[in-house]
C-alpha cells in the first residue's frame, strides 16, 4: 500500500522524483522500523513523510486539482490502520473469526468514510464560489459545530 502511494507520488512530477523517492524511502524505513521493533510512535512520522512527498509533488506539478488525492489519502490511512493492526496481532491470542471479521469491516468502513470525506473536500473546492454573509456565517457555524462535536466526543 505504502509503495503504491509512493509510486504515484513519484510519477506525479518526474522533476521531483529524486526528492520524492528519498522522502518516501525514509518514511518506508520508519515504517519498517515500526513493524520490526513494534514501536507505534514512528507511524505518524512515516505517513507524514510520504504525505509530504506527495504534497510537494502536487504543489510543484501545477495549479490543477489532482482528483486522485482522495485515493492517496485513503491509501495512507489504510497503511496506518493495517500497520497498527499487525502490531496488535504480534501478541498471539487465538481469536474467534467474528473478532477478526469485525475488525476488517471496521477498517474498511473507516477507509470508505474517509474516501467520501476526502472526495467531498475536493468536490466542494471545485464548486463555484459563493460569496456573501450568509454562506460565510453558515461556514463558520459548521466549523464551530464540528469542533464542538469533536470536543464532546473526546470528553466522553
Amino acid at each position, binding site marked *: 500500500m505504502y509503495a503504491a502511494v509512493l509510486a504515484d507520488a513519484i510519477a506525479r512530477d518526474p522533476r521531483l522524483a529524486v526528492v520524492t523517492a528519498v522522502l518516501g524511502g525514509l518514511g518506508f524505513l520508519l515504517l519498517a522500523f515500526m513493524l520490526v521493533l513494534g514501536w507505534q510512535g514512528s507511524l505518524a512520522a512515516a505517513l507524514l513523510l510520504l504525505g509530504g512527498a506527495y504534497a510537494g509533488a502536487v504543489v510543484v506539478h501545477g495549479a490543477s486539482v489532482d482528483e486522485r488525492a482522495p485515493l492517496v489519502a485513503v491509501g495512507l490511512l489504510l497503511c496506518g490502520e493495517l500497520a497498527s493492526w499487525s502490531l496488535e496481532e504480534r501478541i498471539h491470542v487465538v481469536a474467534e473469526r467474528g473478532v477478526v471479521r469485525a475488525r476488517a469491516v471496521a477498517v474498511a468502513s473507516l477507509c470508505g468514510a474517509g474516501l467520501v470525506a*476526502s472526495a467531498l473536500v475536493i468536490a466542494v473546492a471545485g464548486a463555484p464560489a459563493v460569496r456573501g454573509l450568509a454562506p460565510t456565517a453558515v461556514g463558520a457555524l459548521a466549523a464551530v459545530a464540528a469542533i464542538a462535536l469533536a470536543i464532546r466526543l473526546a470528553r466522553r
Partner: protein
Amino acid sequence: MTLASSPRLAGYVGLAALGLIVGLAVGRVEIVALAAPFALAAVVGAALKREPQLEASLALDRERALEGDEVVAAIELRTEAGAARLDVFLPLPDELEATRPNPRGIRLAAGESRTLELPLRCVRWGALGVGPALVRARDALGFHSWEGRVGHSAALRVYPSVETLHALLPPLETQVFIGNQVSRAKGEGVEFADIRAWTPGDRVRRINWRVSARRGELHVNEEHPERNTDVVLFLDTFAEVEHAGRGTLDLAVRAATSLAHRYLGRKDRVGLVSFGGFLSWLFPASGTLQLYKIVDSLLQMDIVLTFAAKGVDFLPPRTLPPKALVIALTPLLDTRSASALLDLRARGFDLVVIEVSPVPFVDPGKGELADLSYRLWRLSRESLRARYQRAGVPVVEWQDGVPLNVPLEEVAAFRRYARPARA
C-alpha cells in the same frame, strides 16, 4: 480497568491539523483532502471511547483433584456497553496446564453474557490458586484498550498420586487397639502363637484337645492378637534439592501420602511431623478424615530457610506416642534433622530413615575442584548414614524413579536380621 490509547490516535490528530494548516497556507485543496480522513479517524476514535463495564466470575468444577486429572475453569463474562474485542487470559500456576488456547479473544455485544470454559490438566500436586482472569477490551478499531483483573481467584487442591505399596513396615511393638497388625503379644487372635497349660478362666473353645489328650491335662492355644500401630511420618523440611520440577521435597510428599494412605487403610493411627524452618505437626489419628488432614498438610509443605537450632523438645509429647513407628523421610542435607532423629532413637523410638536421595538432582560440576567437592559431599553423607547404622537405625537410600516398595523391602530385610537391643 486501566485505559490506554493507541499512539496512532494522537498521530492522526497531528497529521490532520498539519494537513489543514499547510493546505490553507499553500492554498492547495489536495493537502486538505489528505488530512480529511485522518480528521475523521480522530473523531471516530473519540466516539469509540466507551468503557466496556465488564463483570466476571471464575468457578472451577471441583475443589479437589488428583495429579493427572482434568479440571474445568469456567469464566463468566458480562458487559453492559459491549466490547468489539475482549482478550481473556487466565493466569495459571506452574502445576496446572491449559489444554486449550489461553488467552482467547472473543466479541461481546452490549448486555451479552458468555461463559468461557478452559480445561486444565493437573500436572503436579499442590494447594493452588487459579486466576483472577486478566482481560483487555478494545474498541472496534483498536484506538482504545482497557485492561485489568476481573473476578476473584479460585482455590484448587491437587493431591499427589498414590503409589501402590505391596507391603508395609511392621512396627516392633503394636498398640492396644484392634487393628490389622499381628502383635508379638499373646492373647486371642487368629495367628497361632503357643500352647500353655489351662488356667481357670480360659475358654473351652481354646482347649487344644490333641495336646491335652497326649499330655493328660488340659492345654490351651494362644494366638497373636491383631492390634493397630501408631505411625509417625517425620518429614525433614530444612532443605531440599530440586531440578526440572522434581526434587527431594516432592518425593518425600509423595512417599508420605502413599504411606499414610496405606497405614490408615488398615486402621492404624498416623501422625505427621514437618521438621524444618516451619515446624508443624498432626497428632496421630485414624480414619479418612485424618488422611485428608495429612494430605492437606502435605500440600502446604514448603522449605523455609532458617538458621535456628531446633530439637524434638519443641514437639508436643502427644505428637510422638510411645512405641510409635517413626518413618523419617529426609534428604540428609541438614545436621539439625540428623541430630533430632538420633535423639528420637536415643529415647527408644522405633525409627526408620528413608533417605530421599538428592544425588540425581545435583550437578557435580566440571573441573577438578568441583569433582573433589562432590566426592567430599558424598563421603560426608556416607559418614552420616554410618552414624545412624551404628545407632541401630536402618537407613536406606531412595532415588527418583525407584518404586517406594524397594526401600521398604530393604528396611524390612534389615530389621529381620538386626533387632534393636533393649535394656
